[in-house]
């Protein structure tokens, strides 16, 4: 062990009360930082997940007059050949059209969407959200939302006539195979969902799609990836949209939240650093006799300064560890005791190890940095002053 470290350790041990006081200050600081940080991250992830978890994050649309992507499979292959292929978690064509459900007494406007269920289920989770009946198996089978079923008094097995514009005079018939309930209100009320083939037939646009939808690994990279794909597919008659453009309000709210979280954390760090610096500064005065004698015995000024840097390091490490335990404990209590009636936490928290390590690192670093002030004083201390004053 280095001498400066050994002396630092003994100094801290000797002034146990003072050391515990600083460690508690760091502990509280780190725990507040971790608690608030994880909580706000949890809130944000939850919010983002609710907003875009079950929706397209990047959407490719046609810019042609007839608004179709002529051969969606070829387009998907092209997208998969770009450098962003690894970022994409699911990609599928969607064929959609407005449609009017024609009943005996009333017309009900709806939005008919046809998916390739194998891929689309990963995003929309239709299969998991069927509350009655089953997923469409045959052509011309559809599923509808719970709200529509209630509104129009429809049930599994019913057949409904739909009118697809612009051909308003020849309604087509589809059969309800199931009823779903998604987290999205409009979907439950007005979506009629079916296999992509069915919708292509209904619209008389075989082998085309209206759009291609994608989800990606890092939703916050959506804008970058979208413009990257756009560049890679230059010359195609398409435009690429991403969720960030469509949810600017949400994003600015998230930004505001992040900034306030960072502000809180910065002030916590500042106050903890000031606490460390001031207590260690007092400690330099308290230990000036020892420092004077060490200097008379030939300790180098640099080593005399290092003693306090090591004190900062030791205090920082202990504070960071205890603070992490306390902070994670608080988060655990929060997710365990602050729960919804169904037992799920009010705010689901994602334990972000990177963030915890970062908080610990910041605590240790700020402890060491604030220790440089007393360290410098200790280095400058003249042994004569101490020895002369007895």
């Amino acid at each position: 062990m280095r001498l400066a470290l050994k002396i630092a350790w003994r100094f801290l041990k000797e002034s146990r009360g003072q050391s515990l006081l600083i460690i508690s200050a760091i502990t509280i600081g780190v725990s507040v930082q971790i608690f608030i940080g994880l909580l706000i991250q949890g809130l944000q992830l939850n919010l983002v997940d609710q907003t875009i978890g079950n929706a397209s994050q990047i959407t490719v649309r046609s810019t042609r007059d007839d608004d179709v992507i002529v051969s969606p499979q070829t387009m998907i292959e092209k997208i998969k050949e770009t450098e962003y292929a690894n970022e994409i978690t699911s990609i599928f064509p969607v064929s959609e059209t407005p449609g009017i459900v024609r009943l005996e007494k009333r017309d009900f406007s709806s939005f008919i969407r046809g998916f390739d269920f194998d891929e689309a289920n990963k995003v929309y989770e239709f299969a998991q959200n069927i509350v009655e009946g089953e997923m469409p198996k045959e052509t011309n089978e559809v599923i509808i939302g719970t709200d529509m079923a209630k509104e129009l008094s429809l049930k599994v097995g019913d057949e409904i006539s739909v009118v697809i514009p612009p051909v308003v005079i020849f309604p087509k018939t589809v059969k309800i195979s199931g009823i779903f309930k998604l987290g999205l209100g409009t979907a439950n009320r007005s979506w009629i969902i079916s296999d992509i083939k069915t919708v292509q037939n209904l619209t008389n646009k075989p082998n085309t799609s209206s759009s291609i939808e994608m989800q990606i690994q890092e939703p916050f990279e959506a804008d970058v990836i979208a413009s990257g794909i756009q560049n890679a597919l230059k010359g195609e008659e398409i435009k690429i949209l991403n969720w960030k453009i469509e949810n600017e309000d949400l994003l600015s709210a998230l930004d505001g939240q992040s900034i306030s979280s960072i502000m809180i954390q910065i002030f916590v760090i500042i106050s903890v650093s000031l606490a460390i610096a001031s207590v260690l500064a007092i400690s330099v005065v308290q230990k000036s006799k020892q420092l004077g004698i060490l200097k008379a015995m030939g300790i180098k000024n640099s080593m005399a300064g290092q003693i306090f840097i090591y004190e900062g390091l030791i205090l920082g490490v202990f504070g960071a560890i205890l603070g992490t335990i306390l902070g994670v404990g608080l988060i655990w209590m929060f997710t365990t005791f602050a729960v919804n009636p169904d037992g799920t936490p009010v705010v689901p928290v994602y334990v972000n190890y990177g963030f915890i390590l970062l908080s610990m690192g910041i605590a240790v670093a700020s402890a060491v940095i604030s220790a440089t002030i007393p360290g410098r004083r200790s280095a400058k201390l003249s042994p004569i002053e101490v020895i002369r004053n007895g």
Partner: protein
Amino acid sequence: MDNTVLQLEKVNKIYGTVVKTQALFDLDLEFERGSFNAIIGQSGSGKSTLLNIIGALDNPTSGKVVIDGIDITKKNQKELSTIRNKTIGFIFQFHYLLPEFTAYENVLMPYWMNNMNPPNEIIDKANYLMEKMGLKDVKDKPSTNISGGQQQRTAIARSLINNPPIVLADEPTGNLDSENTQTVYYLLREINKEFKTTFILVTHDQRVAQMADRIIELKDGKIKMDVNNFIEV
């Protein structure tokens, strides 16, 4: 010259920049290797200033201080630290042990400054010194849990661990009763003989001064008296 361990040439010390106070005036002194010297004088005579300069704790305003052939007035802080560590042993009136360490650790401290893993030779030396100082039984006690006399003897052992050619002692017995004063004095003399260490004692205790080989009296920053004092111990 070879026998001179410490030499001061025209050493002046002036304190203050606006109001100047001169503490030492053109001091010329030489100390022989292995000698036992006492510096006496009233308070304000400049003896502490002199000790600080000899001890490389303070710089003279002008003049030369040569310790073991090295002119310390030309050295930077880092080099002075090394000189203090290797060439000079300090004993102070108030013992100044580190309360955070045991008596034994205090003795090893000057060595630790160079090497945290002392070889057996140094450990043996520490043990030998402590035994000689009658500290065998309190070796591993915290330095604050031992008596004043024991503390001062620990400080003596500490001053010797790096085998310095010079030991400076500032009122080493000033805080001790007469019995302990005697013990400490005899120990210092013994070491002086055994290790040929040069001792420079600052004291106002006439009895202690009388037992030195050479007595230098300072008055108002000048040498008032410098006598050899041949005694048998």
